[in-house]
């Protein structure tokens, strides 16, 4: 099963094709990447590392741009508030 990578998004397990970015895993999990300062759900906008709308916490490290981060086996991803 080397073609799939398993990780968790907000505690739920999800399996994605290897090479997929964390932004894709978060989208497939049906979760927003972050909640904005006025409480809106937000997801990727630019897809190229510029807007920071896709930021999430990865393995405890906050503010990672999920569109620029490849998924790795066992990663723990959480949306940011």
């Amino acid at each position: 099963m080397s073609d799939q990578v398993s990780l968790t998004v907000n505690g739920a397990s999800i399996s994605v094709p290897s090479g997929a970015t964390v932004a894709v895993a978060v989208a497939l999990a049906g979760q927003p990447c972050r909640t904005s300062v006025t409480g809106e759900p937000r997801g990727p906008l630019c897809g190229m590392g510029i807007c920071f709308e896709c930021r999430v916490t990865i393995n405890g490290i906050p503010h990672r741009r999920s569109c620029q981060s490849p998924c790795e086996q066992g990663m723990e991803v959480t949306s940011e508030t």
Partner: protein
Amino acid sequence: MPQSFDILVIGGGPAGIAAAIRAAESGANTGIVDDNAALGGQIWRRARTESVAEPAAEWHQRLQTTNVSVLCGTRVFDQPEPGLLLAERHNDILQLAYQKLVLATGARERFLPFPGWTLPNVMGAGGLQAMVKAGLPIRDKRVIVAGTGPLLLAVAAYLRSHGAEIPIICEQASWGKLARFGLTLLADRQKTTQARQLKRDLAGVPFAANAWPVAAHGHTAVQSLTIMRNGRSEEIACDYVASGFHLVPNTELAALLGCQIRGGFVHVDHLQRTSLPNVFCAGEPTSIGGLELSLIEGEIAGLAASDRVPEAQRLVADRKKWARFARRLDRTFSLRNELRGLASPDTIVCRCEDVPHSRLREHGSWRAAKLHTRCGMGPCQGRICGPATEFLFRWSPDSVRPPVFPVRVSSLSAERTGQPEHTKHEEANR
């Protein structure tokens, strides 16, 4: 210890790749830096499962025959002294010293705020394409493509070839402008072939000129989009909206270094020399002209930087031809006035700080708005809201301060200690 280069290229898109090849062929110790995981820039970005297509393959192969040092996943954020750049890679700081520098930092999409544009699954056109290349399944999804510029067609064709359904492509330019643009394409065989291919790829997809998005609807994600088409509004169901309004150049690094910026673009002469000695610029930061212009400018910059001026001069005529194409793009896809009225008072313009249109329009300048509303002070550093407010309110951008990208705290403490300038990265780390 800094890594030292005779010629250092920042940006690994077509312009940067061409510059690095030409520089290295001359025997110069050359490096190329890009913040993505692989070289290729925007147009040559590809899914892991896709093979490299022409003409990218040819350039990649040519690069492999040189001894260019490739530094990917590396983002340049500051120049503490002339000839020395700082870059972040993972959590490390790299010091990169250069004799000559080629800036090939490309462009990004322009986004315009309309009600609902902050809903998840409303993305840039290139943005959604990049997500699909990064593994997002798009088969059987309904994607409305809306905005302006040739990128809309390229993206619609790409998404369709991956199984998406495109209910409509909305182009804000008028039929008249598009027709004039189309006629000028006939003068060039390459462009005519590209246009014919696009036409085949998009056969059966409704295309509307004089049409633009006015409001996206949904709760946790977009479910439909209202568009304005020939003066009538119409709501269309969708799973995604891919919306971008042509491109804006990435000039921040050039501005930080002190290169002269004219009319929003990095000013260069016929040999791609900026106003600073030993600093060259190529590709989209100098004008939005498409692949061919980026490649030629890259070649000229690489040749000129390695003192092969006569060879560089031989390419200047070709460059002129594609520069004319860039001007035609500008004219055709210039934004219509009606788009200034798209945002309603409570539409968020600055997405980082959630600043609505009503709070911004009270201010007379970008600087005043920043000071009073925090617009542009978030982690995007105004890259998204800056071009939007430039159009909406005709504000001109502020001067650029380091770091040009938010940097992790550990990176900065390794940088210049004691300088109280780095408010920007703190925003990113809030």
